[in-house]
Structure formats: C-alpha cells, structure tokens
C-alpha cells in the first residue's frame, strides 16, 4: 500500500495526473461532483486543476442568492432578555419588555410579554433552519466549492450554536464572515471572530467584566481556537480573560465598554503589559503552537487524520512561511504527493453535511431538494448546521460513525432517491411536541386556558425531554401569565411569519444518466452508478448482489429492453450501493 509519497509535500508532476486523482481533488477541495466534472479536471494540468479551487475569487458567484430574511425581527427585540423569567420580571417592573406592554389590569397581565418572548425563540430557531438550508444550497450550487468547504471547517472550529445565541441574524453574520475570510489570512479571521457578535454572546462576553472576569472566551481561545492544550497555563487563561473585559456586542456590532475594561497589566505567555484583546491575540498568533495547531487541524479536515508529530511541525512551517495565508498553504497541500498518497486517498470519512451535499452534487442538482428536509436529514446523521453540540464543534472522522448512524446514512440515500411523499410533513412548520398539539386542540375547541393546560400536562411527559425549554414550561406556573399558552402563541406567530420552504422531491433521471453514460447491460448500469456515487471501489460481493438485484427487477440484463421502466429499479440499486460502508469514504 505504500507508494513512498507519504509525508512528501513536494508537488506531483504532470504525468501523475489521472482521473482518479482529479476525483480525489474534487472530493477534498470541494464536495465531489458528477463524472463529467471529474473528466474536465482530469483534462487540465494539476496546477490548473488546483487553481480552479484555490483561486476561487476569480470565479463568478452571481448564481448564489443572498439569504432572504423572513419578516420576523424588529429593533424592539434588542436587547433580548436572557430568560423567560427575566422577560416577565422586566415587564412587571417597568411595564413593558421587548416592545410589548403589560396589560394595565385584568387576568394574565403579562401574557402578551410571555407570548412575545416565545415568538422570538421559535422564530429565530425556524429562521436558523432556513439559514442552514440556504447555506447547504450554496454548497450544492457554488462554482467555488472550496469557499464553502472552508466556511464549514471554520464553523466547526469557531463553533457557536443558535440554541444559546438565540438570534439567527448573528449566526448568519458569522457564516458570512467565514465565507469572506475563510481562505484569507488566519490572523484577520481570528481578529474578526473575536469581535463577532455570535461569538461574543456564545462565550459570555457580556459577563466578562473588570473585577469579575469570565474565562469562557479566554480559555476556548487558547485551547480550541489557537494553540491547543499544553501550550499555556491556567494563569494565562485568567490573564487573557482580563484583556477582553468590557468587550461585548451592541446588537450586531462589537461594543467595548471602557468602564468595564481592566486597563491593568496582564502577563500572558511571558509577555507583560496593559494588554487589550487584540494585543493578546497578537501574542497568541506569534506562538509556533498556533501555526502548528491550525495547520494540522486544516490538514486533518481536508486530507487525513493520522499525522506524525514531525509532519505536523512541517505543516506548521508551511503555514508560517505563508504568514498565516490559507490559500498558498492549500495550494501546496493540494499539489503535494502526500495529498495523493495511499495514506490520504479514500481514507476520509465524510461528515453528514459533506455526505449530503456531495450526493446532490454528484447527481448534478442545482440546490438541495425540499424533500427530504436538509436539516432533519443532517441532524439524523449527527450534524445540525448552526447548532454544533459544544464549543469544540464536531469530532470528525470515525467519530461520525456508529452502527445507528451508518444505517441512517443509508436511510438518507433512500429518502433522497425514493422520498416518502405520503408521510412527509414540513418540519419548518413546527416540530411541535404532542402535548402542545393537544393543548392547541383544546384551546381551539373553546376550553379555558387553565383547564386545557392541566389536561395537556398529563398528555405526554415524554415529549418534555425533547427540549429543556419544554420541561421548563412544564415546571413553571405563574398567575400573571400561562407559559404553555405563551408557547403556543409563540409558535403560531412564528410559523405564520417565517417564509415557506419549497417542498419538492429531487428532480433527476438515473435512466438518462446511466444510458447517456453508455451503459447497455445491468453490469454496466451498476458500474455507472458506482462511478457516480462512490469514490472508492465497491467489493465484488456487493457489486454482484447489486447486478443480480437489478436483473431480477428488470427481468433482463439488456437495458434497452427495459428502458421504459428503468427508473425505479435503478433508484433501488442506487440505494443498495449507497447503503454500503464504501459510500462513506472519499
């Protein structure tokens, strides 16, 4: 298996360039593509092929629409109270919150305020699903796939979640930042992220105050964003946190409050001075540990998991030599022998979003289909865009795969090839727990709120586990408002106002793709599907099982005789091929 190319960063030559290597480049620098795209890349020189990915700024992207906002936000929602109790308390004390007044008299005086709180929580969550879908559409449609691949990488690196940020606008702004700076200079990117509102909220910048430093950002900055464990002390974390005191956001911009900033001397990584946040970033960026860490993490994401310490140092040298510029670093990587070595090719386990996007790109689709729902599908496989599980982002590689997720990946293929149009419901119209449905039905049937709440509480406590919010609702009862009713009203208004998502099955014809590819027999049909959907060879046992299956479905080995009823059998065969372990690899 060894080809002597491992750990060799020198460039491959023109004679090394093959369709298989072109496919590898397309898989890793992008999200894969159909056979004709592989052929186009294979016809170029390796340098030109790599340039077609890394020099993406020259490529037109006017086909990619900007995100279309629903009409859900208005400035009265800022600042948004941290919790529902904080919202109703504010209204009780001041007479209003989030632009909504408490009723002067009567029962449930604070109900409109509670309704308003839940409206925004629900609306932002639903709109975030639309942002995720919009981004996935870009990944499928873009002619600059490396731009989106890197944005996806940085999203996992500087991982922030809407579940805590509670504002899709901040999350969208952060993704735009990754798209804008993701292939530029890491110094620029890091400095921008440290000022990014989603990050400021996510790591509690608002709580990092002079005299009461909150170490959340300082710690993750060193551990996860730059150097990694072992290159700093707890003291460095605490001192760095002091340098960022007073930094927070005013809605969508950085706001530095001098009164809350600690202007005293700090000692960080051996340097002492009255540092502010940027100066601490500069100290961290000057550490070789940072270049090594970032270079290795990029390499693991794009190339392979297994890196020797010596090779990590060489990757760090490479990123240092480009002074943190990502594009020249990646140009060298994508042309290198190591990138095309047997240690790298066909050893990468695709992440959920990558798997889904690459499937659509290999079919030549221009966007994600509305059916299956993109976010639900990727969540089922273990990844929800804009909602990483923790600030450490997603563990890559083998961590994606469990027996359950492997089955789920095959099920995604089936849902894409043969969507269950009968059972399909639009998840953007509300993932309502069943007790909410029961409550809504009772309210609509004319029951009073108190009675309807009591009955609904007993309806299905199991649903409560789906979100902490739901359980919080169950436990809180307050005479000035009804939380369950507020939740219902919040859902209703959010779903009324959030823009619809087109729900349509993917439009493609495997019959056309297979026949136009020149296949004449069932064996050639299977070969054609394998070449389209897999990046590694299929074992002969599964290959033969697929041929036998297709032949049984068609009643012949001759595709020409079966061409009028070929589509469904081909889709079932594709499902079989995409249910294999090999489908996960690139």
């Amino acid at each position, binding site marked *: 298996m060894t080809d002597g190319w491992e750990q060799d960063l020198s460039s491959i030559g023109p004679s090394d360039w093959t369709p298989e290597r072109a496919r590898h480049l397309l898989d890793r620098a992008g999200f894969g593509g159909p056979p004709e795209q592989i052929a186009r890349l294979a016809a170029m020189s390796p340098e030109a092929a790599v340039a077609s990915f890394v020099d993406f700024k020259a490529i037109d992207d006017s086909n990619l629409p900007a995100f279309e906002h629903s009409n859900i936000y208005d400035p009265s929602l800022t600042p948004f109270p*941290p919790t529902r109790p904080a919202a109703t308390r504010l209204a009780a004390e001041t007479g209003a919150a989030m632009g909504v007044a408490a009723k002067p008299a009567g029962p449930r005086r604070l109900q409109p305020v509670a309704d308003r709180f839940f409206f925004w929580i629900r609306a932002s969550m639903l709109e975030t699903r639309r942002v995720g879908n919009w981004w996935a559409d870009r990944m499928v449609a873009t002619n600059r796939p490396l731009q989106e691949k890197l944005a996806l990488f940085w999203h996992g690196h500087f991982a922030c979640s809407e579940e805590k940020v509670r504002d899709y606008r901040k999350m969208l702004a952060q993704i735009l930042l990754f798209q804008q700076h993701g292939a530029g200079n890491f110094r620029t990117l890091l400095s921008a992220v440290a000022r990014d509102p989603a990050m400021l909220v996510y790591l*509690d910048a608002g*709580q990092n*105050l002079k005299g*009461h430093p*909150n*170490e959340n950002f300082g710690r993750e900055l060193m*551990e*996860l964003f730059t150097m990694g*464990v072992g290159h700093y002390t*707890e003291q460095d*974390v605490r001192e760095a946190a002091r340098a960022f005191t007073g930094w927070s956001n005013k809605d969508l911009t950085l706001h530095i409050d001098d009164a809350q900033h600690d202007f005293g001397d700090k000692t960080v990584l051996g340097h002492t001075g009255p540092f502010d946040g940027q100066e601490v970033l500069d100290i961290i960026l000057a550490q070789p540990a940072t270049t090594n860490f970032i270079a290795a993490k990029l390499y693991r994401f794009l190339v392979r998991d297994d890196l020797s310490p010596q090779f990590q140092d060489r990757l760090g040298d490479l990123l240092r030599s480009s002074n943190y510029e990502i594009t020249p670093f990646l140009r060298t990587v994508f042309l290198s022998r190591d990138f095309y070595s*047997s240690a790298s090719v*066909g*050893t*990468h*386990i695709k992440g959920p979003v990558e798997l889904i996007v690459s499937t659509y790109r290999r079919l030549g689709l221009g966007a994600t289909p509305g059916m299956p729902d993109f976010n639900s599908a990727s969540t089922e496989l*273990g990844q929800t865009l804009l909602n990483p*599980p*923790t600030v*450490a982002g997603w*563990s890559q*590689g083998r961590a*994606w*795969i*469990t*027996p*359950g997720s*492997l*089955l789920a990946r*095959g*099920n995604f293929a*089936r*849902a894409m090839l043969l969507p269950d149009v009968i059972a399909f419901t639009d998840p953007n119209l509300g993932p309502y727990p069943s007790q909410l449905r029961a409550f809504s039905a009772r309210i609509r049937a004319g029951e009073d709120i108190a009675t309807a709440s009591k009955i609904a509480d007993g309806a299905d*406590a199991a649903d*409560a*586990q789906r979100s*902490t919010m739901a*359980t*919080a609702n*169950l*436990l809180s009862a307050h005479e000035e408002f009804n939380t369950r009713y507020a939740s219902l009203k919040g859902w209703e208004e959010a779903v009324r106002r959030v823009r619809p998502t087109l729900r349509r099955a993917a439009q493609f014809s495997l019959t056309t793709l297979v026949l136009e590819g020149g296949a004449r027999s069932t064996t050639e049909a299977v070969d054609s599907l394998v070449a389209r959907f897999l990046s*590694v060879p299929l*074992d002969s*046992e*599964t290959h033969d*099982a*697929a041929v*036998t*299956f297709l032949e049984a*479905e068609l009643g012949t080995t001759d595709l020409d005789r079966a061409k009028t009823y070929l589509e469904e059998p081909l889709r*079932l065969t594709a*499902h*079989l091929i995409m*249910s*294999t*372990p*090999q489908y*996960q*690899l690139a």
Partner: protein
Amino acid sequence: MAKRILLGEIGRRDVLRAGLIGLGGGITGFGAGSVNEAAASTPTGVGSRVLVVVELSGANDGLNTIVPYTDDAYYRARPKLGLRPEKLRKLDDQFAVQSGMAGFERLFKDGKLAIVHGVGYDNPSFSHFTSMAYWQTGAPNSGDPYGWLGRLADALDPSGGDNFIVDVETRQSLAVRARAHVPLTFFQPDHFKRDATYEEKAALDQIGNRRTARNGAETFLFDVAASAQRAETHVREACAAYRTPVDYGLVRFGLERVAALIAAGFPTRIYYVSYPHNAFDTHVNQADNHARLLTYTSDHIAAFLADMARIGRGRDVSLMVFSEFGRRVAENANLGTDHGTAGPSFIAGQLVRGGHYGTMPSLTDLDDGNMRFTMDFRRVYATMAATWMGCQDTAPVLKGDWAPLPVFEG
C-alpha cells in the same frame, strides 16, 4: 433479619476503615423491602454482572448536589447560591441533597447509594473537553486512543464478543472505544433501522458480511456495518417490546433503554449513558436550572434501579455516576459557578454498601479558590472494574495499581 444486621455491620466497619466522614445516621442497613427481595433472588456470578456508567456532562456543581449544610464556609462562599438547610433533604447531620432529589435520598437511606467525596486527580484541567477525555480514557495526559471501559471490555473479553458494550448516545463516547470490541451505539431505537423495501432485503443483508478492507478507515466501517447488521433488529424490538410501570422521570436520558436491553437478555456487560450537551455547565443563573437537572437525574437513576429490582436483576446491576470536574467553591458574579476541581461520584445498586466514602475536601483550605481533591477517580474505577466486574488485573485497564473502595463485598 439476621442478614440485614450483618450487612449493615460489615458495611459500617469497612466504611469506617475507608476513611468515613459524617459519623451520624448516614449509614443504615438495607431497608426491609430490599432485603426480602435480595433474599428471594438467587445470587448470580460476577461473570454476569452489569456495569452502568452515567456521565453528567458539563461539570456538575457537587457542592450544591451533596450539600455540606452544617459548614459555615459553604454559606460564606455562596451567599446567594448557598442552599438553606430548610430547603434541603437531609441525609445525615452533615450532608443533604437538593429538595428535588427524593430518589437519591431514598437510595441513600436504603443503604444502596455510596457517595464518594472529593473525587478528582492531580494537576486538574479546567477544560471540559480535556478533563472529560481524562475521565473517559482513565489516563490523564496520555492521549490514550481507548477508553477505560473499552480497555475493561478488552480485558474481560479479549475475543470481542457481540454487544459487550452498549453506548446510548448519538455519538460514541471515547470512554467505550476499545481495541477488540465495536460498541453498539444508538440513541433512538426506532431510528436504529435500515429502511428498505421487501425486494431489496436479500441484497442489503449481505452488506454486513466481512470483507477485505483497503485501509484502516474501511476496516473500521466494515466492522461497524457488521455490528449494525447483527444488532439492528434486536435493539429495536427490545425497546419497542419493553413495558414497565416505573416512571423514569421527565428527562429520560437513556436508562429506560438500558433497562429494555437488560430485560431482553442482551449479553451486554457495560452500558454507558450520558446526560448530554454540557448540560451541567452552569455559569449563569444556575439555581433553577441546576435544581431541575438534579431532579431529572435523581428521578431517572432511582427509577432505573427500582426497575432492575422489579425484573429481578437488582443484584446483577450497579451504576456509577461521574462528572468531569466540579465547580469553584465561591459563586461567581452571574449567580452561577465557574469551572472547579473535585466533586462527588456515586455508586448505586442493590449490592452497594451505602454511605460516605473518602473525605470531603475542606472549603477553606483551597488551591486558588478550588477544593483539593481527596480521592483519585481511578479508585472509583478500580472499585467497579475489580470488585464489581471481577477484572483480575486492572493495571492495564487503569494504567496503574489503584486500590478499590470497599463499596462491595469482595
């Protein structure tokens, strides 16, 4: 009755030897009900015992879990978050649990809950991910690729028998990663299913067959595919068929699924369950949230053990609860607590000798605001691995020799 007294006495003496704290009424014998039950069921061999590990992710605030309500230092450090004695469920004259933790109180008073105090390790990490990795590998600073439960499984069954480890999570934990075993990882059993039409089934069934792999990633995928193929139907059917009158609480984070598999006769000896999403990371406004988390945890665990007793497996199953570290002694300026060091771990089950183990760290003699750990977490692991699971040589499992605690009869 003689048996009850005997167990109580042995328990008390050993616990005293182990460095008992809380000399008051904390130690009691088994309750009458449990003794009858224990006497009624035939003791089973160590080789069929089951270990259930519960992870509380996010660093549980141990001081507000097992509350030292007679210690003024506690209230001085926590003027706002300190829980007043009248709002607590008292375990004895020194410690109490939060009011929502009726389940833990019952277990303790029945003598089925061991509280191990001050659990941690030297040179603690304050990072969730690092400290959790230390706990999960059982080997701080080693970067070990396998988890301590994975190594335990490898030691107990080097042949890598089917479904020896079950991990009820959406993502496989490092704790269960093994050399010889492919842990069965699933979260929602009804999703643990290959969707296929009747005609496809024969062709799909051969996907789980072993084949020659081209590289390590492919080997891994083939192994997992084989595991999925073998387990798919069993897990789904076991969970769907399971009926229990026991209420597992508002947040069922996985133990009811463990119960279903145990009841269905799974050969699994190690189960791993997590309260996920860093839920216990209570930096801000922690009081209500932490109270809820503990209520759900306590309800869920107590229900599981009651359910095990109900199906006659109480003597075969023990459960261990941990969190990657505790919180700082003093509350912060945001009505929450920041990352700290040592905290309590728990061992519960029918054959557990309940009571206090180890020494509660001082709340005044602090290391930069943090408690000094008094019990290495690997001693808790050694208790489960050696005494409970019968692992003859735990040195390779725990990367060293760690003395078990006398929580179980030897």
